[in-house]
């Protein structure tokens, strides 16, 4: 059933996405997105736009409350943890704008997706990826006026008038009645469009702490969830590396613990081999994602990486994504080196991930380009 609210709701979504009424976007308060307590518990963003009024600053105001506690205790009754911004007006809660709940992966990918652009996968070779398209295929008696088939409607009216005997060739006036109206109808058809592969590479060397690996996993997990949801038949390959690189299955990628030195070139070389052997560039859309703390073994190796990228990777891929996680040990030099060499190349997308809160922003940086 369609609701009246749908129009207002889609206006609101449009504002939130910045598609319409851009000047309102600055008032949007966003909740955060990805969980703190494992992958089950997440915060759902409920964007909220405040309409400005003449009003008081909340901090000056304070208020009245009810419950236990001594003067000097924080609001909320828990002396350990002061609840931030919990001052509510009597009689009227401004309403929390984010909620913590369990959601399914699909729902989450949807929520995430509202913020993202899809990579623009090109039509290449024998197609494996399915996309859906609506086609007008027939005629029916009901439908929206915008889809009214004028010719068919006219014909029906003409036929009716002739058969009822009130058509005269001298005065050929045709007046359709609602029963005469005919509308276009459509079917949704699946269309194969393209092949695409995503190659995830992760640095699992000693300088990558557990927290850093976790961040990489969360980020690649969501990238994968989102892209898999959008494109049926999308392939994913996983590479982990320290001083040597090897290809692993999904399970290992998301759960392995290793340590050792770091030679990023090993991963890039393996990636290039993988592409050479399995994914000819004229048939495949290729998206390598590499995550590291940016602490490479030596400058020589970094130069080797740059060389591999220039010679083997960049000519074949649609986009090369590099995400650097901040780590307490690493120098974080690698991204600087990459910037030096590829700053002007828009096929290379780089993103620095400070902490877990930065994951969403980083995903947006990667996918926000629509490449």
């Amino acid at each position: 059933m369609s609701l009246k609210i749908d129009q207002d709701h889609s206006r609101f979504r449009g504002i939130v996405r910045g598609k319409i009424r851009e000047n309102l976007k600055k008032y949007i308060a966003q909740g955060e997105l990805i969980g703190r307590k494992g992958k089950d518990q997440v915060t759902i963003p409920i964007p909220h736009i405040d309409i400005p009024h003449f009003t008081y600053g909340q901090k000056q105001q304070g208020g009245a409350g009810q419950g236990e506690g001594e003067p000097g205790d924080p609001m909320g009754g828990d002396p350990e943890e002061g609840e931030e911004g919990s001052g509510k007006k009597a009689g009227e809660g401004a309403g929390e704008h984010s909620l913590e709940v369990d959601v399914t992966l699909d729902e989450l990918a949807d929520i995430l997706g509202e913020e993202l652009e899809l990579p623009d996968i090109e039509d290449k070779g024998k197609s494996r990826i399915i996309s859906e398209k609506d086609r007008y295929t027939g005629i029916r008696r009901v439908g929206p006026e915008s889809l009214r088939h004028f010719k068919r409607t006219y014909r029906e009216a003409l036929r009716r008038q002739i058969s009822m005997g009130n058509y005269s060739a001298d005065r050929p006036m045709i007046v359709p009645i609602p029963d005469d109206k005919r509308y276009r109808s459509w079917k949704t058809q699946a269309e194969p469009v393209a092949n695409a592969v995503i190659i995830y590479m992760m640095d699992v060397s000693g300088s990558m702490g557990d927290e850093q690996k976790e961040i990489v996993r969360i980020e690649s997990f969501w990238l994968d969830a989102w892209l898999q949801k959008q494109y049926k038949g999308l392939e994913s390959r996983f590479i982990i590396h320290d001083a040597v690189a090897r290809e692993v299955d999904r399970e290992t990628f998301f759960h392995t613990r290793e340590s050792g030195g770091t030679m990023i070139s090993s991963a890039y070389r393996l990636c290039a081999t993988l592409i050479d052997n399995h994914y000819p560039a004229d048939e495949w859309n290729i998206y390598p994602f590499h995550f590291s703390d940016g602490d490479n073994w030596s400058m020589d190796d970094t130069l080797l990486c740059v060389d591999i990228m220039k010679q083997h990777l960049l000519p074949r891929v649609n986009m090369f994504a590099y995400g650097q996680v901040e780590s307490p040990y690493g120098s974080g030099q690698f991204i600087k080196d990459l910037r030096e060499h590829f700053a002007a190349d828009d096929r290379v997308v780089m993103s620095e991930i400070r902490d877990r809160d930065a994951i969403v922003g980083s995903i947006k940086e990667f996918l926000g380009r629509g490449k």
Partner: protein
Amino acid sequence: MSEFALRTSLPVYLREEQDRVEKIAAGEGLDFFPVVFEILNYDQMNEIAAYGGFPNRYPHWRFGMEYERLAKSYEYGLSKIYEMVINNNPSYAYLLEGNSLVDQKLVMAHVYGHVDFFKNNFTFRATDLDAGAHTVDPSKRRNPYDPNRRWIDKMANHGTRIRKHVARFGINRIEEFVDHCLSLENLINIHAPFQAQQKADVESDTPKEVPRLRTERPYMESFINPVEFMDKQRAKMDADRDRAKKFPERSERDVLAFLLEHAPLEGWEHDVLEVIREEAYYFAPQWQTKIMNEGWASFWHSRLMTTKILDSSEIIEYADNNAGVMATSGGRLNPYKLGVELYRDIEDRWNKGQFGKEWEDCDDLDAKRTWNVRLGLGQQKIFEVRSHYTDVTFIDEFLTADFCRDQKLFSFGWSNKSERFEIESRELKKVKDKLLSQLTNGGNPFIYVEDANYENRGELLLRHDHQGQDLRSDYAREVLKSLVRVWKRPVSLTTMIESKTAILRFDGKEHSVRQMK
């Protein structure tokens, strides 16, 4: 009856319940408009709730925003809307499909409390309409009282009016203006409906002469009407006349009315602003009496449910749900809880005669504890209170030190040292001060139109009556923008920033702040 009302129908078993609850409520002395219950599924419920209870409003994105919040909280099982009732005659109330029978009865009993309040609390009389759907003078209450409150129709008409402009000018243009108007919607004077229409003093334009004392002897003239005195009088009259030229003559608190009357608005702009203003006045009684209204409805649902409606098998389920509604969490005040406890306290005190001079003057704690002169005035008193008070007067008069202590009320404030909200005090005076300052004018600052020809340049000057709290400055700047959009000339606002007088000004391009010493 709206078309919407005919679309859904109440199942027979609920209709029977309604009859029963209605009879019981009337038997207890509640006096309400006819109530129409509708049963809705959760999607419809969220939609209607997003529209503030009305099936038809003007198109605006914020209803969509509210819908998203409600729908998400419902879908993720965080909250659901129990009841919704509209101040309309007949009143419409909504029941959620799939709620248990006990819940539905609870909602019905609660709704009859609200509708009694809508009908009898004086503030709601400001929503009475005449045949042309204009508000009428609320100071007269006819007997028997059956006012026209067809606000469902009125809101739907507002929707039609605005949609007509949308069709003509496009949604973006209209919506943008609606946003500006909404920024101004709290600039109304809640007392305006009750103030007698101030007649503009129609003074003759003929210049007045200073009145002279009559004398028949010309040579006495300069003694009886000395020249210096006459000059002084003349100067004073000139000054008076100049002062009268200031416009508006008196500060005007109904800024919206002033703008409607005097801003250079296009036809459609006038229409939009008028709609926003009328709706702001419609909702004003609800925020003026939030604690009282919710308290009253809760008071009656709990009394009716526990004494008349429920049988013993249902009482546990009821108690469980009721406890959820009355719960306070995180130290926050729950208006339902505060209201209901205050009514109970008042009823108890007036039953026992714990009021008046004798009671106030008594210092004997023991005597006070057992004070009971069996006046039995409780019921009568609370009905009186529900008719003649608003939240401000309700709290001011009936919040006592004993109540404050029993209910564990406290005041809190922001602590700069520990960067959090902290409990400040449990003293009656401080708690009451905080509560009242939040409730007064709905927690909105007092803003007046001072001068519509500021600095003789046709600019608008507003004044913020500063009562100890500064305005939120980023919002104030935005509201000034909206005012300029409506007034179409620069707008200034005098206020105080950190205890110094300041004038905020927006000229259509830039903001400026002038600090005074």
